[in-house]
């Protein structure tokens, strides 16, 4: 009985989300009604009444608004612009240098922002006008901005990994350690994709005449000291165990403010606007987290994950078969759902299955963020696509869809590599957090 209610609940949830019901309402209502049907309405009300208090005053989740604030202040103090011009110098002389620079700057910005959408929005403002005025093909410029944006949620700090850590009850510092190498690897894959695109289609980007000297490149590298400093202090603090994730996020937010303020690149008005935007983003995310918690109680009660495990066991497709099936499922889901929806709906259902197949939950966090990344640039619902379209409305949506398609291969290829070589994700946490 409870499993039928569970399946119906999930179908109803997906239908509601696709019919424009806010994700928070869809998950919360389905979770409450489903729980009530299986375990009684008074129990459902008891669970629902306690969740806002527990989630909204959680110490672990307090890092979320702080990381959002750090990224916001970094943008407002112009760090992203300096990062892009430095990356331009570093890649100068190559055909398509600005597309490489966009990827480099996105990876660097991902080291302080933690959000894919923030990275894509920032790079759209910073890099896209420059590439278009240099007569880059829209497919190359838009594609590199959209793909570069996805690096924001894989390279630590990552808001998506904090959310996964909460729902899967996993250590955020370990997740941050696990995602660093895959983040660097994904950047490298994107660079190869841009190199292939420009090599085989010379019309994609003009030939670059200017080539920076070694001295200019060194100076360009030194020019991004603020972001390097923030990354070393924040992520280094977490990796060495000197700072908890919340403390590191607080140091990062205060550091971004001080760096901007002392260099007169950040006014008090900017800071206030940053605080306001941070509060809005955080409140919106917490509304979804509260609903997701209610939904998780319902999923656990229905024993759907156990049903899934025994069903898959009976099929005998093996652990690689399971991960391949999940990869295909997530790619399809990513075409229609946004990032947090994907994580919060599927983790309670699939994590037990993944663990029963012998995979580490920390490893699965990285795998999941990768497929979510693919979803952010997969048509028709790709948040990065919409962010670019909102700011460059003269580029038709269909052209953006065409532009991002070659880059979708990046996260998918890396997922396959992760399945074959789990150490790509697990090596660093095992070294850093060895008992």
């Amino acid at each position, binding site marked *: 009985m409870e499993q039928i209610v569970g399946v119906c609940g999930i179908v109803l949830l997906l239908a509601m989300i696709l019919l*424009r019901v*806010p994700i*928070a309402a869809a998950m919360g209502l389905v979770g409450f009604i489903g729980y009530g049907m299986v375990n009684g309405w008074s129990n459902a009300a*008891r669970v629902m*009444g306690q969740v806002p*208090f527990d989630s*909204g005053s959680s110490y672990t989740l*307090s890092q979320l608004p702080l990381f959002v604030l750090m990224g916001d202040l970094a943008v407002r103090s112009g760090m992203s612009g300096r990062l892009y011009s430095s990356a331009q110098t570093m890649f100068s002389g190559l055909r398509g240098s600005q597309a490489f620079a966009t990827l480099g700057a996105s990876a660097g910005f991902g080291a302080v922002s933690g959000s894919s959408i923030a990275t894509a929005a920032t790079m759209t403002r910073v890099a896209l006008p420059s590439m278009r005025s240099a007569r880059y093909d829209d497919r190359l410029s838009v594609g590199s901005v959209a793909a570069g944006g996805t690096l924001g949620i894989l390279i630590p700090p990552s808001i998506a990994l904090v959310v996964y850590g909460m729902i899967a009850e996993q250590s955020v510092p370990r997740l941050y350690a696990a995602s660093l190498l895959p983040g660097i690897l994904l950047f490298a894959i994107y660079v190869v994709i841009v190199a292939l695109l420009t090599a085989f289609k010379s019309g994609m980007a003009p030939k670059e005449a200017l080539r920076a000297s070694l001295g200019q490149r060194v100076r360009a590298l030194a020019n991004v000291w603020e972001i390097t400093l923030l990354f070393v202090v924040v992520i280094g603090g977490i990796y060495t165990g000197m700072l908890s994730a919340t403390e590191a996020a*607080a140091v990062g937010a*205060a550091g971004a403010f001080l760096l901007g303020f002392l260099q007169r690149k950040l006014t008090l008005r900017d800071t206030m606007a940053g605080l306001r935007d941070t509060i809005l983003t955080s409140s919106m995310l917490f509304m979804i987290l509260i609903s997701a918690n209610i939904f998780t109680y319902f999923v656990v009660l229905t024993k759907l994950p156990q049903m899934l495990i025994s069903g898959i066991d009976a099929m005998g497709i093996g652990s690689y078969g399971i991960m391949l099936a999940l990869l295909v499922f997530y790619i399809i889901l990513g075409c229609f759902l946004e990032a947090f929806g994907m994580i919060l709906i599927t983790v309670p259902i699939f994590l037990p299955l993944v663990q029963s197949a012998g995979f580490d939950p920390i490893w699965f966090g990285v795998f999941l963020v990768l497929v979510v990344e693919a979803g952010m640039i997969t048509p028709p619902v790709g948040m990065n696509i919409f962010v670019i379209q909102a700011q460059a409305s003269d580029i038709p949506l269909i052209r953006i869809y065409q532009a991002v398609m070659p880059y979708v291969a990046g996260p998918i290829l890396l997922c396959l590599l992760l399945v074959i070589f789990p150490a790509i994700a697990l090596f660093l946490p095992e070294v850093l957090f060895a008992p």
Partner: protein
Amino acid sequence: MAISGLSIVTIIVMSITDALTEAITGRGLAISYDVVEIAMAYTIFLGLPEVFLRNANIRVDVSDYFLPRRVTRVLEVTGTLLILGFVMLLLAAMVMPAYDSTRFGDYKYETGFPYWGIWLPIFAGLIAAIPSALAAGGRKHVEP
């Protein structure tokens, strides 16, 4: 919003002070967890009315591309009503645990801060979200 902003600053100051104290003396501040948790509730829930006022709850708008505009408007209104229903359901469900924790005098262990002081912004934020959502819905409805 001002209280929310102050709460974030409180979280930052408290966390940094805690980290520094631990680095210097080897022992962190005992009250740090409590203060951060209390400030979190004020940060998150007092920001909710603005989220509803700006109609900023995340929705998947893929249906906009293939459904007629009239239908998407109906879906949008339905979505707003459902999120309002969810907020009201949350409020109703929270009354009992909030009443119990106040009745039994629950408080934070390290600071002695009463639980009702945490329930307060939760109720305030969710209650204020209702007129905000209605105002946002009304504004959207009269737009051409």
